[in-house]
């Protein structure tokens, strides 16, 4: 009876979400092992060993795992999972890429984006982009679960647990890594930004999004848009925040010229602080806003950019 956490790493450092997943796993009350797969990841392994609650860190160090291709690492996890009752990971793009693959090979129905662990087989997760919360009970002997890391406070530190190598080597030739680009110095990515400034149809055209950029520059914010603004052709689809776009939950979300359709609210209502700027006093966005400012965005935005 133990839990295995599939942890990620980047540039030799452990993914900070790992400490949050470990904290979540503690609710299961079983020994917790962490497995890392990659190449030359000793530093990340040491960091994992020092997370409070971790019994053992398993390290599969092989060139084949360098880019954590789902086809390779899922097979290792299948090999390892026999000893465990729970396999957890962060509900990151990597976690979501890998866990379902393991689940299919183990004939398990996996659970995605869990925000609370009620018991060893019962979990809570958002559905309909967070418009409802489902409590679900897994009937499988092995539970395969990705956790929304931000829903858990990170675990503390301990003196290092043991680190053991995993010798399983699985090399799939069906897919190959080509390249990776992580833009630096530019605007933060929408789903991980601490502050998001979004524009809606009220912006009038794509050119006017420059007004948002001035505000975003001051706040180090990402820029989003409502589906209405995307449908109107102001900005590209990948800036869309909402049920059909990105789901964001930053510390601060500033909605400008966005009326607040159901589908937009589904994508941002878990933000910690919401500011709405709109000239329509009746706009539904004000119902979810902590701070509402009724006014002409073309006057408000330049003033805001100046005063921040």
């Amino acid at each position: 009876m133990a839990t295995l956490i599939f942890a990620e790493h980047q540039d030799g450092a452990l993914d900070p979400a790992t400490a949050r997943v470990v904290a979540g796993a503690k609710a299961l009350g079983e020994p917790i092992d962490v497995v890392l797969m990659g190449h030359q990841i000793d530093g990340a392994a040491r960091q994992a060993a020092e997370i409070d609650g971790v019994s053992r860190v398993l390290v599969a160090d092989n060139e084949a795992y360098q880019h954590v291709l789902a086809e390779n690492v899922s097979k290792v996890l299948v090999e390892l999972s026999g000893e465990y009752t729970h396999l957890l990971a962060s509900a990151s793009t990597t976690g979501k890429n890998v866990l379902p693959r393991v689940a299919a090979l183990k004939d398990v129905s996996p659970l995605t984006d869990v925000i609370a662990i009620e018991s060893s087989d019962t979990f809570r997760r958002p559905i309909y982009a967070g418009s409802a919360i489902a409590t679900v009970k897994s009937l499988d002997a092995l539970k395969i679960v990705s956790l929304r890391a931000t829903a858990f406070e990170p675990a503390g530190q301990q003196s290092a647990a043991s680190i053991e190598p995993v010798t399983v080597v699985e090399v799939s030739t069906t897919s190959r890594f080509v390249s990776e680009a992580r833009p630096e110095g530019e605007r933060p990515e929408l789903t991980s930004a601490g502050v998001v400034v979004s524009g809606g149809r009220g912006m009038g055209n794509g050119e006017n999004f420059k007004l948002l950029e001035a505000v975003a520059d001051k706040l180090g914010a990402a820029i989003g848009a409502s589906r209405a603004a995307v449908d109107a052709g102001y900005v590209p689809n990948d800036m869309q925040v909402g049920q059909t776009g990105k789901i964001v939950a930053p510390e601060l979300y500033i909605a400008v010229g966005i009326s607040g359709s159901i589908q937009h609210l589904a994508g941002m209502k878990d933000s910690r602080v919401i500011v709405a700027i709109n000239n329509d006093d009746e706009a539904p966005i004000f119902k979810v806003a902590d701070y509402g400012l009724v006014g002409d965005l073309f006057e408000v935005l330049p003033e805001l950019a100046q005063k921040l």
Partner: protein
Amino acid sequence: MKVLVAVKRVIDYNVKVRVKPDNSDVDLTNVKMAMNPFCEIAVEEAVQLKERGIASEVVAVTVGPKAAQEQLRTALALGADRAIHLETDEVVESLGVAKLLKKVVEDEQPNLVLMGKQSIDTDNNQTGQMLSALMGWAQATFASKVAIEGDTATVEREIDGGLQTLSLNLPAVITTDLRLNEPRYAKLPDIMKAKKKPVDTRAVADLGVDIAPRVELVRVELPTERQEGVRVGSVDELVDKLKNEAKVI
């Protein structure tokens, strides 16, 4: 080459979700339904592959109740050549859908399966990965760019904080993200034409696939509602509140 594109009937993205009074599930009675938006992107990509002369045939497939035929008709109106409807009134989990799709893949032998990265109802983001695993194929999830050359697909995918490019041997499963394309709207003549395109309906019960649920839905509830905050009278007041009250800037 042949492209199989899987689509799902879900609640329309613009409908407010209601929960049944007994908290047993969401209430979909008399709710407007539509094709899952990420599936629309998958259909668009498949149709574009055909328009570029890369795909020779686009086959749409769905697992769902009788009414899900509407979404297959939508796929046909958007440019799919024919459709397969695996009909069931049961709720089928991702694992069951993956197993059913595996059956179709074995029959149809497509070179590529395109699917949405997730459906906007259960938000699982699983089925594509699971189908790929069951087939022993390569996968590329969160695709934002797909280039096919011979037996290889080069796929740019959206990962946390950046983009990753993979090269996959075909056949493979690719799941779509938002940036991949902008789905077209079906034109009226195409909607009329779609009514004449073939839809092959098969009862899921006859396929001998284990779709027994592995996850029990215990309870569904609305999240805690946000309380409406305060109105501020000026930009100065807003900046002051953000700095000194909310302490977020």
